[in-house]
């Protein structure tokens, strides 16, 4: 029996474990963080300790990693020194990975995302390339992922642009659930300026599905673990893997290096913290599959001194160029705290031929620019809202930035109950100078160098921001907002990266001279080390990446298992 080690239990690792175990392999899954689920391998509903608790999730790092012990560092491109040490776009460090805290949005990448170089052409200064496969090749894996984890949506009602660029073979497994009032308001603004909003595809059960509960619209969705496990995501392939009886899940254990003997991996070394201090050990295997998420997989490759013939290991980090819109309604409380976070989206702005976009690009010396999928809706919880007023009172009431006026703001709730957000998930081009490296000074709790991230908005992204910001404001005003704001999350020189979309660093490609992993995710120069997470992405698309991470992991691991 062949044996694999899978590093990470999230979107990619769960599908890797399933594909290999179902092909008869023995699999050990190492997860750095704890497990807050029970009945994973059983039948019936999965149980969890997650709850409607914003303090635990948004303030106290319950899903981890805690930056006191697992920090990262960040600087913008060209900055002389590190600008921040702490949480830098950290994904959860927990069984289930990023699919625990996500709001489970599962749009598909478009055909042009997989063929960005041949379909749209090169962009000066960027390393634009094609994936080693096209949309038609990956579409069956999207189908299988959406069926297994359970996706809701209305295939027939998807706008023609989406049908053209990401055609489906059939309906979604489940119909859309109730639409949030706040999302519908923002969507009305999108319609008013000529866009085509629709029910956001998401991997949340609108009806009981695969032995798991239907969502009851509790409202604690984005950035929370689901208390009723109505969006199980990675837990479904993990369950399928565990049910083979050939998979061992090892939580609270961090892989510290992949052990190499020449071009072959013999296994991994790991470390686990105990009350008496760190304990280390090793595990051998025939194959090692890395799925620790874009940044951590690169860090582990660097800690393991992987070969890097192309010079691209750790380069081309993509995290999307977000623009955050804010609509404030003075005539209505729009109660975004009810329902699945953000139930509408619009993809018109993914199109390089959005009206005016080509001309604007050319005026700025670029062949094209791209926006991205727009999430129509969203708000924040009271603790985050209060933190916003704490900051704002420092500006508008500097002589006394606290007291009854703070409480007046909380009751008025312009930044929570009267707010509907909007986020454009902008295509982030791959740049060789956007990197993950080992920080020379900062170490984690085990004494290992942490990931240093160098990333900021490139020229194409800045031009796209300039083009789309007025369009977003116009949309929010058309939605009836008294105040409409739109700001880029990151600029050329500043803005800590956020948004949790981690892609690139170990790009796939047929040619070892220009890519880090082969057409199925095997690391060039190593016989038996594979990557099955977002780090293999060649482009960032203009959509939430998890569905694509899962579909690509499934495709590549089926190939490895010989069952594709």
């Amino acid at each position, binding site marked *: 029996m062949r044996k694999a080690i899978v590093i990470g239990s999230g979107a990619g690792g769960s599908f890797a474990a399933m594909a290999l175990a179902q092909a008869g392999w023995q699999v050990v899954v190492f997860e750095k963080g704890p497990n807050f689920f029970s009945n994973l391998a059983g039948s019936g509903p999965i149980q969890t300790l997650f709850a409607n608790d914003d*303090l635990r999730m948004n303030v106290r790092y319950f899903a981890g990693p805690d930056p006191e*012990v697992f920090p990262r560092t960040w600087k913008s491109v060209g900055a002389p020194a590190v600008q*921040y040490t702490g949480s830098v776009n950290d994904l959860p460090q927990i069984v289930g990975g990023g699919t625990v805290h996500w709001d489970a949005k599962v749009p598909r990448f478009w055909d042009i995302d997989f063929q960005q170089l041949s379909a749209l052409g090169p962009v000066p200064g960027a390393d634009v390339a094609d994936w080693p496969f096209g949309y038609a090749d990956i579409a069956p894996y999207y189908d299988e992922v959406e069926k297994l984890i359970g996706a809701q949506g209305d295939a027939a009602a998807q706008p023609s642009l989406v049908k053209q660029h990401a055609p489906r073979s059939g309906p979604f497994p489940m119909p859309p659930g109730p639409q949030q009032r706040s999302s519908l308001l923002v969507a009305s603004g999108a319609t008013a300026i000529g866009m085509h909003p629709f029910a956001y595809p998401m991997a949340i059960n609108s009806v009981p599905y695969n032995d798991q509960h239907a969502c009851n619209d509790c*409202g604690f969705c984005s950035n929370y673990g689901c208390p009723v496990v109505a969006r199980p995501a990675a837990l479904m392939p993990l369950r399928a893997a565990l049910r083979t009886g050939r998979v061992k899940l090892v939580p609270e254990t961090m892989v510290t290096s992949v052990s190499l003997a020449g071009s072959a991996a013999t296994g991994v070394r790991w470390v686990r913290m*105990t*009350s008496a201090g760190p304990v280390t050990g090793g595990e051998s295997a025939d194959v090692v599959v890395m799925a620790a998420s874009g940044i951590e997989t690169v860090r582990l490759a660097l800690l393991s001194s992987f070969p890097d013939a192309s010079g691209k290991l750790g380069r081309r980090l993509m995290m999307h160029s977000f623009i955050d819109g804010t609509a404030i309604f003075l005539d209505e409380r729009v109660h975004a705290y009810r*329902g699945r976070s953000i139930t509408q989206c619009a993809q018109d702005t993914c199109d390089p031929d959005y009206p005016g976009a080509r001309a604007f690009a050319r005026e700025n010396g670029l062949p094209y620019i791209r926006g991205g999928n727009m999430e129509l809706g*969203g708000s924040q919880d009271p603790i985050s809202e209060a933190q916003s007023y704490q900051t704002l009172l420092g500006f508008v*009431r500097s002589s006394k930035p606290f007291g*009854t006026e703070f409480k007046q703001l909380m009751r008025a709730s312009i930044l929570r109950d009267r707010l509907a957000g909007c986020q454009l998930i902008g295509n982030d081009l791959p740049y060789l100078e956007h990197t993950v490296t080992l920080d020379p000074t900062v170490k984690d709790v085990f004494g290992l160098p942490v990931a240093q991230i160098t990333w900021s908005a490139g020229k194409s992204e800045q031009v796209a921001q300039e083009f789309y910001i007025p369009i977003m404001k116009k949309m929010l005003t058309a939605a009836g907002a008294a105040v409409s704001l739109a700001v880029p999350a990151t600029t050329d020189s500043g803005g800590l990266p956020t948004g949790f979309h981690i892609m690139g660093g170990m790009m796939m490609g047929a040619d070892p001279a220009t890519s880090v992993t082969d057409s199925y995710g095997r690391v060039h120069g190593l016989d038996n080390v594979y990557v099955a997470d977002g780090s293999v992405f060649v482009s960032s698309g203009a959509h939430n990446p998890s569905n694509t991470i899962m579909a690509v992991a499934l495709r590549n691991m089926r190939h490895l298992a010989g069952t594709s």
Partner: protein
Amino acid sequence: MWHFGHVLPQTFPVESIVPGHGPAASVPRRVVISAVPVAVASAAVLSGCTSSPPKPRVFRFFTAHEAAVVTDATARIAPGPSDDPAEAGHPGAREAGVSNYIDLMLGALAALGASGAAGSPTPMIFAGGPWSNRHTSGPDMMATFVGLDPVRQIAWRRRLEGWQQQYRAGIALLDKQAGGDFTKASHAKQDSILASSALSTFRALLFEHTVEGLYSIPEYGGNRGLAGWKDISYPGDSQPRGYTAQEVMQSDGTDVLADTGVVADVLKFLKAV
């Protein structure tokens, strides 16, 4: 995930976790400060009454005097009816038990001892789940706290030691600025001390923890009687009931907010961002 923080002038998390590696002073801020419409703070009508003494109780971290200072200071940040006449009918930090929340947090690991021995009480860092049943019937499963794995014990020990030092020093500074006892100072004097630049760092920490104690689930020791949530018409945790499709989709009706006072000034500021 939509993120309001990007709209704000300071885009970094407040917490900087490695000494000397915090947000660099050279990081450009998004807002042009000179464009800020700084409104004149309205002259708060301050009552002359002094706060009632706290009931004797055993604290996890604070001394009785420290608890009294924190109770008064957080009540200036989020005043209740006895702290500011403008808040009549609106409970604040004092009524919500914010100082109790802070004390439980700062002392959360004290019972664990140096090595977090097995069998010691679970630290009150992570409340349990999956729900409280506070809007339904049944046991409160959020009240059974989740234990910390060894890595998280290290993280929280470091974090709480830092905050404990900040509180000890901050409370001492509040007393010093008040001429010996912060709790004996008038409300006006307490406000001016808290607003002074000498207190800005500690005030920021107190403000954060006041907010947490007001609006977090009550299992953490604040938000007493759901006072924080009721004041802002927020139902809090909703599981296992959730919301009906109608509650999700339909408008709650017209609710016009007067664009005046601090609301108007914040909106004006945001429009200028």
